[in-house]
């Protein structure tokens, strides 16, 4: 049974669905989740040039988005968190390499039929390389500190 697209896409959909009720293209700017894929998807907000900065985690939009959207995306600073090199990490302003789930860190990933698979760690990650959940929680911690919350 394969996984979808870039990696744990089904897992992302599942988590966003139980947290907000919607699988993707959720706009939080109004204080409650807004889901309208012709208006709130990343393609739409990029085409309307409403994006200040893009945080790209474990995916490669530069290689897969329509050309026009890719151009707009390259106009804003990109922060890429990825275990591997990709076209997105090539053009990103900041690249944070992450440990590989299932090899260097444990975790869960969802198959494309929504079955969660336990991932086990078999190797130590290279020195200083963190799991993506650790990177994100450290970013969140710092954002909270800077905003004084």
């Amino acid at each position: 049974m394969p996984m979808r697209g870039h990696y744990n896409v089904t897992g992302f959909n599942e988590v966003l669905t139980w947290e907000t009720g919607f699988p993707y293209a959720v706009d939080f700017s109004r204080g409650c989740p807004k889901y309208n894929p012709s208006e709130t998807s990343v393609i739409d907000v990029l085409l309307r040039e409403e994006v200040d900065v893009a945080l790209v985690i474990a995916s490669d939009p530069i290689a897969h988005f329509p050309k026009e959207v890719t151009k707009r995306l390259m106009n804003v600073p990109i922060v890429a968190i990825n275990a591997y090199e990709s076209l997105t990490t090539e053009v990103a302003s900041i690249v944070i390499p992450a440990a590989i789930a299932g090899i260097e860190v444990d975790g869960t990933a969802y198959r494309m039929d929504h079955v969660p698979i336990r991932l086990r760690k078999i190797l130590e990650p290279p020195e200083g390389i963190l799991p993506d959940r650790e990177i994100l929680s450290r970013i969140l911690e710092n954002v909270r500190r800077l905003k004084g919350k």
Partner: protein
Amino acid sequence: MIKLLLIKNGYVYDPLNEIDGEKVDIAIKNGKIVEESQINPLEAKVIDATNKIVMPGGIDIHTHICGYAINAGRLYRPEDGHLRLEPRTHIRRSGSGYTVPSTFVTGYRYAIMGYTTLCEPAMPPLLARHTHEELNDTPIVDTAAFTLLGNNWIVAQYLKRGEYERCAAFVAWMLRATKGYCIKLVNPGGTEAWAWRSNVKDLNDPVPYFDITPAELIRGLAIINEMLKLPHSIHVHTNQLGVPGNFEITIGSFDATKDVKVSSIRGKRKQSTHVTHAQFSAFGGDSWKNFETKADAIAKYVNNHPYVTIDMGQVIPGETTTMTADGPLEYNLHSLNHLKWINQGIELETGGGLVPFTYSRVSHVNSIQWAIGLEIALLIEDPFQVYLSTDHPNAGRARDFYATFSRFNSNGFSVRNSIFCRCAWMKLRKRIWHPCP
């Protein structure tokens, strides 16, 4: 945790200690209720509960709040999310959902109603990880999940061969591996038969290939439950659920475990069988035309047999999303209303489905269903043998518990189930309560 807490001036209800609405102050020290003299009111945090009820936290023993089924419901019903959007506040996270609320919203809504423990009653072993991830994201309330074993291939084979020791070892491992709280059977044998394009007709109809009957599955798992001395009994969602005339199968399911000797470690449990959402299992007649209530037959049996408990599965009129690990039932529902549906088989373990459904106040079937739930609750004499449940969201949204007993009889506006009418009603109500100056 707050070390010292004093709840003052509330009306206290505590059935175990026979306190029935008296004004009593409650002192709590390190999470335990103590004599009021044991704490210093000056140091304690005081909550003024004047004109409020103080009661033990509610337990919903059957509510589909987490896991594959409800998440599929959220996923395929974005229109349901748009019915209720919950903004974030300084203490709450945002969310959405009317019949299939998101996890945070579920926790908040139950907490507002006074519930502190929720049980997710359908966890396929293969999807246990998903269920627990969602339970971790359900705030405030305590949670448990029941492992589906009634259609499990390995269980069926062991029981057929009479290898109870091995089956018990397998069930014990399964409960530990999936962090399950009790053994759940959903349409025992029937969901497996559905994978063979059929269903079991009654308790003695053998499952294709496995050649084991639903009665043997129920009895076998009840015996294993007692071999393992589990704290709770098996939970059974009966065969032919939601089909007119199924009350005989329900009583047969009770009978299947009649001579199973109860042995729980704590020694408090008397019952060996729990039948969930009994309202759906108490149908008489042989078609929807002569459909009738058989709540009296079910209640009579329960009153005479202390080893049985049930929960109501009370219908609340209005829109909802049905979801269960009973594939053929969901197919029947879909054949009735032709709304979008999901049907899934989960490898060697179970299967399930989802269909949106509207309980209509003008439908005689739905009205009788509403009455069956109440009849069951009122006719059973021992209150500890019947639990309040709506099988959320199957028979109704849990957040509308308070409306369980009032909706049908209200003589107010006949509110139809469309969102537009609902909005109009809200506006009208505001106008009545807050007249313009």
